[in-house]
């Protein structure tokens, strides 16, 4: 009897508190109320949040960082990445993908492609409101949908952006120094971080 | 106008009760039959209301519909098997029973129609009753005064029936 009454007191306290302690909008702090009115209000985005991958380009979409090395496709645990390397007119392979598809119905957002990529070309996006009217077609993202500028990356993950820019700058310097020292450039080898 | 409507209503109820009663004995599915019985009982309760016997009407609903029928349906559920739909639900006595009962109804009905009921209900047959309607107060007084002995006997029977039912239906 008394246990029941105490429980009812607690629920009543919560009932009253929900009226007097509203949730602060757009914040993790909760008052008496926990509901967030989702489409209008959103939680602050966390920098490390990962959802589906995107391909990064520096200035214009043609000049993307991806060299179609296929490492991400190999390392992807559910094997949701499909890459075809581009060829030039003579049929020689180019360092850029012709086809780069990611099946978002299969992707499990683990972020291993981002970790494994030696060229910092693929990153996990914050975009999570993807959805389609049918089961698969609209959720297989092609290269034009996946390509996003580096500024987007700088916006969603500023800390990582700074670190990666720093790393790329250093690498470029090293390469330039090496090129100056040795006229013949060494064969492209995936650098290990 | 109002009495005519009321009369029509009562006759309608009586007719529906009879249809439901036929359903009780004729429907192959015993569960449907029991539901038809509920209909009949409600119709009879409506008749009681029309006869200004509200207490009996309410007791009819409370006891029959609320308790007895629940029990019956429970028993049907416990003894119902899937194959029951295909088994014939009537035995071979249907035709003789039908004839005999038809004769019975014709006989009694003729008798009833022939009898002059004016001694009981006053002349004209359908005028409002001579007796005032029995209210709950009178009924209560009668039950606990004049009829207190049968009342007690009935309660003893109820207890006996209760215990008997438990003893018979218990699993051991």
């Amino acid at each position, binding site marked *: 009897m008394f246990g029941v009454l105490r429980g009812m007191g607690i629920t009543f306290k919560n009932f009253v508190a929900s009226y007097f302690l509203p949730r602060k909008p757009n914040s993790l702090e909760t008052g008496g109320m926990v509901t967030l009115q989702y489409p209008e209000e959103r939680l602050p985005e966390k920098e490390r949040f990962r959802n589906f991958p995107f391909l990064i380009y520096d200035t214009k979409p043609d000049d993307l960082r991806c060299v179609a090395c296929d490492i991400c496709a190999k390392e992807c645990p559910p094997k949701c990445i499909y890459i075809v390397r581009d060829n030039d007119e003579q049929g020689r392979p180019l360092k850029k993908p012709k086809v780069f598809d990611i099946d978002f119905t299969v992707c499990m957002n683990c972020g291993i492609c981002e970790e494994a990529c030696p060229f910092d070309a693929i990153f996990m996006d914050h975009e999570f409101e993807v959805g389609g009217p049918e089961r698969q077609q609209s959720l297989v993202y092609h290269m034009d949908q996946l390509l996003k500028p580096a500024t987007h990356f700088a916006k969603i993950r500023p800390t990582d952006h700074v670190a990666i820019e720093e790393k790329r700058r250093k690498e470029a310097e090293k390469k330039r120094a090496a090129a100056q020292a040795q006229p013949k450039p060494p064969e492209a080898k995936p650098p290990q971080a | 106008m109002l*009495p005519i409507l009321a*009369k029509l209503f*009562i*006759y309608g109820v009586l007719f529906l009760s*009879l249809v439901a*009663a*036929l359903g*009780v*004995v004729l429907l192959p599915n*015993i569960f449907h039959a029991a539901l038809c019985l509920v209909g*009949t*009982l409600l119709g*009879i309760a409506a*008749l009681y209301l029309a*006869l200004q*016997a509200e207490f*009996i009407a309410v007791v*009819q609903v409370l*006891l*029959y519909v609320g*308790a*007895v029928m629940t*029990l*019956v349906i*429970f*028993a049907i559920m416990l*003894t119902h098997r899937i194959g029951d739909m295909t*088994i*014939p*639900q*009537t*035995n071979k*006595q*249907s035709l003789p029973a039908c004839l005999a*009962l038809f004769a019975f*109804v014709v006989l009694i009905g003729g008798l009833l129609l022939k*009898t002059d*009921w004016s001694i*009981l*209900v006053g002349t004209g*047959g*359908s*005028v*409002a*009753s*001579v*007796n005032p309607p*029995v209210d709950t107060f009178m*009924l209560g007084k009668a039950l606990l005064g*004049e*009829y207190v002995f049968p009342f007690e006997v*009935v309660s003893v*029977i*109820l207890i006996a*029936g*209760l215990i*008997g*039912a438990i003893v*018979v*239906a218990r699993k051991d």
Partner: protein
Amino acid sequence: MLIPLEHILIFSTLLFAIGVYGVLVRRNVVGILISIELILNSVNVNLIAFSRSNALDPVMGQVFAIFVITLAAVGATVGLAIVLALYRIKRTVYTDEINLLKW
């Protein structure tokens, strides 16, 4: 009384006849029990109808109707208990399959 007494009596006669038909014809014990309820109700209809005439002490009819209802309830209870016991032992509720005069 809005409708003639004899009409109510005929109604109860018909109800009685239907009830008896059910008792005679139904194979299912539960069916027989609910037919008996019909018969008891036809009796009740008579009792109430007469109580509203000036033939009797008006209370008596209603008191007896109450007794009948109560006893019908008792009857149904015990009857259904027997049906359950029967079903448990014989696995049937059809009267013509229960013809051995023993459990």
